[in-house]
C-alpha cells in the first residue's frame, strides 16, 4: 500500500517490493541504506530524499523515479 506524506508525495515502495517479490531487508542490502531509513521512507515519514538514494532505489528496483514517487493533492 502506498504511503502518503504531509507534503503530498506518495511513496509506492511497498507496491514495487511486492511486484519484484523483494523484502525491505533485501532492498536495504542492495542499496546500502539501513532498514530503518527505508522504513521511514516506506511509511511516509521522510522529509527529504537524496538523489543518490533515489538513484540507488531505482537501480535496485529497475524503475523510474515516477514509479516510486508520485504527487497527489
Amino acid at each position: 500500500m502506498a504511503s502518503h506524506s504531509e507534503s503530498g508525495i506518495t511513496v509506492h515502495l511497498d507496491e514495487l517490493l511486492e511486484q519484484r517479490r523483494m523484502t525491505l531487508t533485501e532492498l536495504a542490502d542492495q542499496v546500502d541504506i539501513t532498514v530503518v531509513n527505508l522504513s521511514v521512507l516506506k511509511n511516509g515519514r521522510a522529509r527529504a530524499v537524496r538523489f543518490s538514494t533515489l538513484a540507488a532505489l531505482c537501480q535496485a528496483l529497475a524503475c523510474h523515479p515516477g514509479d516510486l514517487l508520485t504527487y497527489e493533492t
Partner: protein
Amino acid sequence: MTETSTSRATLFMTNAATLLLVAGIAFGVFILGSALDGAIRGGHELAVHQEVSADEVTSLPSTVDRPRTVPVTVHIEDARPNQVLVAFGRDLVAVTLVVAILWQLRLLLRSVRDGDPFTGANVRRLRAIGLLLVLGAPVAALVMQACDQWLASTATTGGLGFVKLSFPSGGPVAGLGVFVLAEVFAHGARLRADVEGTV
C-alpha cells in the same frame, strides 16, 4: 512555530542589533572628533581617573574634583520586624531571579549532555532566560535599590542624601544576546529536523 513567525523574530533581532551597533559607532566617532578638536584647538578638559585614600580627599588640589558619590555602609542595629522583612525580601528577589535563570540553564545543559541540544524546548528555555534578563533583571535591581533606600532612610537621621534610583543596562543587553542565541538554536532545531527526516 511557523516559518513566518520565526523569520519575523529573526528580523527583529537583527534590526535591534544593527541599531545598537550604529549607535555605538556614532558615539565612537563623536568621541574621536571631540578629542581631535581639543588636541588641535586646546582648552579641552580631561578627566583622569585615579584612586586615593579617603584621608586625602579633603586636601586635594583645586584642579582635582572630589568624587560625587562615596560608597558607604549603613549599619542597622536591632532591626524592627518590617526592616527585617524588607531586607530578606530584597535578597529573595535577587535569589529568585538567579535561580530561575539557573534552572533553565541547567535543563539546557542536560540536553547538551544528552547529545540533543537543538530542540524546541531549548529554544523556549533560551527565550525565557532572555526575558528574565531583559525584564526581570532591571525590575529586580530597581526593587532592590528601593528596598535599600527605604532601609537606609529608616536607619539614619540628619538628612543624609542617598543617591536616587538608577536603571541598570547590563541585563537588557545580555538578554538581547541570549535572544539572538535562541534564534540560532531555533535554526539549528529546524536543520536537525530536516536532517533526521532525510534518507
